[in-house]
């Protein structure tokens, strides 16, 4: 017979009322700190005159306007840029999820020759800085493979995200072996195992990978800029960077116009997360093992 320890006063969910409120306050403060850049970006993009003083954070309603969005859309085709970014990013996510899951599973669960080498390679690819490889890579893809000014040329260097491979491997490793053994005894082949047993259990990892793999190509400027000179193919991040470096200066509110573009760039990413985060729920592994 056990007795509960600790304060006997109003324990809900194991916490006192006070502790719950405290946690709420701390989290809320943290949220404010983290949301601030987004908020500032929205406010800045809606201002007619830039106001970089402190008061600018709480703007005068008279100073608000949607003009910046109009201006930047006149100069760079925001929709076209979003579509290109979408194609680029979707290509990368698709390749990474499909092939990355296979490799991660193989690295974690299967025994095969070359396992160590493959993991070492994934780590190495992650470690080497992109700036080191940039020009030889460009020569390779533009000259040897003839892929300049194409979506494939944009996607290729990023096709399978090695961080994703490492992450998949880690999460597959965390699954208890008994599950696999149980299914194998029942005669399931590896692919079946992967699809029916392992994948549903690492759904949070899958979602995590989709979300993090999304950000890289979505915000990537340098590589697409190198590989495409055709403005119709350039992702939004590139058009935005070009705009900032050159054209923005002559806009009526250069800072505002830049933030307007940055906001348009950020919205899909945030939306994606809002939609996906509800799937981050417990998968209740316990019952999968027993019985």
């Amino acid at each position, binding site marked *: 017979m056990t007795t509960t320890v600790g304060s006997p006063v109003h324990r809900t969910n194991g916490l006192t009322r006070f502790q719950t409120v405290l*946690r*709420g306050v701390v989290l809320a403060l943290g*949220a404010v700190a983290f949301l601030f850049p*987004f908020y500032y970006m929205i406010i800045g993009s809606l201002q007619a005159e830039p106001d970089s003083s402190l008061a600018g954070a709480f703007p005068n309603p008279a100073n608000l306007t949607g003009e910046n969005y109009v201006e930047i859309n006149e100069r760079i085709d925001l929709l076209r840029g979003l579509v290109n970014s979408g194609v680029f990013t979707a290509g990368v996510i698709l*390749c990474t999820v499909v092939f990355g899951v296979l490799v991660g599973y193989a690295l974690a669960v*299967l025994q095969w020759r*070359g396992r160590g080498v493959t993991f070492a390679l994934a780590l190495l690819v992650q470690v080497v800085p992109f700036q080191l490889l940039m020009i030889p890579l460009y020569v390779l893809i533009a000259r040897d493979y003839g892929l300049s000014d194409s979506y494939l040329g944009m996607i290729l260097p990023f096709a399978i995200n090695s961080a994703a491979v490492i992450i998949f491997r880690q999460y597959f490793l965390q699954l208890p072996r008994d599950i696999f053994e149980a299914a194998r005894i029942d005669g399931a082949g590896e692919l079946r195992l992967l699809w029916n047993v392992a994948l549903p259990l690492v759904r949070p990892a899958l979602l995590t990978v989709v979300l993090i793999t999304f950000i890289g190509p979505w915000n990537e400027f340098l590589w697409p800029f190198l590989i495409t000179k055709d403005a119709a193919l350039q992702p939004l991040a590139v058009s935005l960077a070009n705009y900032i470096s050159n054209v923005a200066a002559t806009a009526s509110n250069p800072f505002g116009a830049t933030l307007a573009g940055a906001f348009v760039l950020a919205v899909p990413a945030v939306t994606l997360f809002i939609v996906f985060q509800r799937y981050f729920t417990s998968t209740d592994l316990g019952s999968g093992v027993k019985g």
Partner: protein
Amino acid sequence: MTTTAARDIPRHSPNRTRLHRVLGANPLGIAFSAPYLVFVAIVFAIPFVSSIWMSFHDFFFSAPGADVDHAFVGLANYQAVLTDPAVWQAFGNVGVFLLINVPLTVVLALLLAFQLNRVVHARTFLRVSFYVPYVTASVAVVAVWLFLFGGDGLVNQLLGPIAPEPSWLVNPVLAMPTIALFVTWKQLGFYILLYLAALQNVPKELYESAATDGAGRLRQFLSVTIPSVRPATLLVVLLSTVTGANLFTEPYLLTAGGGPNGASASPVLLVYQKGIEQGTPDVAAAIGLILVVLVLIIALLQRKFVGGENS
């Protein structure tokens, strides 16, 4: 019901064991990994091997068909790099960065993920808010940071007389720590995600049994949560170290290349300057490879000490 140990059951006929000896117990693994390996071969191998080759030669990029001599110079590039004080400073800066960023990231990400996992009210809003700096374009986030930490920024105005002089980003001692703080803030969303995913798989039974043994919340956190997410911790440590060592964008945007007296220069910034701006990719390759080797050593050490046997 008991489960039989898998190895007692002969799964395959004796003929196949020779294949297994060559290819491992489960050669399907090779098939699964083949696309990835092909990808690495056609995209990564050549540029990487060229970089290594470049670092041992007197090299610059030239037009195809141009007649240029790329003499073998042995370790001359490495020598030049290792005797350059700017290079040592850059590596030192990145070291300072990692010492601040990695532990801070691990601690904050785990604590926040743990709380975000438990909280009930406004769950979506809170989770999204921590993710937002991670997705916001650097341009906007930098503007905010300058707004906060600039010479006339909010922080200095709040601190009044105890504000550091010179101000944060132009202070040779504080510049790198300020950048470390900024990057931690910006990247935290990603690592919270990793921990959130890991926390989903911690069986509730473990908490329940710890509670019945009389463990309070702190004890539960220390003895159940932390060990259970150890693999995720290794992941967070590894990835934050690797991306931190390749720090380039943030010093470039916040201090536009080097800061006061190179106080915020990073090795990759030097690679960019020397390799791409100044047209000396051989020296840049030497710096890059030294960085790669150092990071690999650190990564292996981390795997040993943080990861334990299951990594």
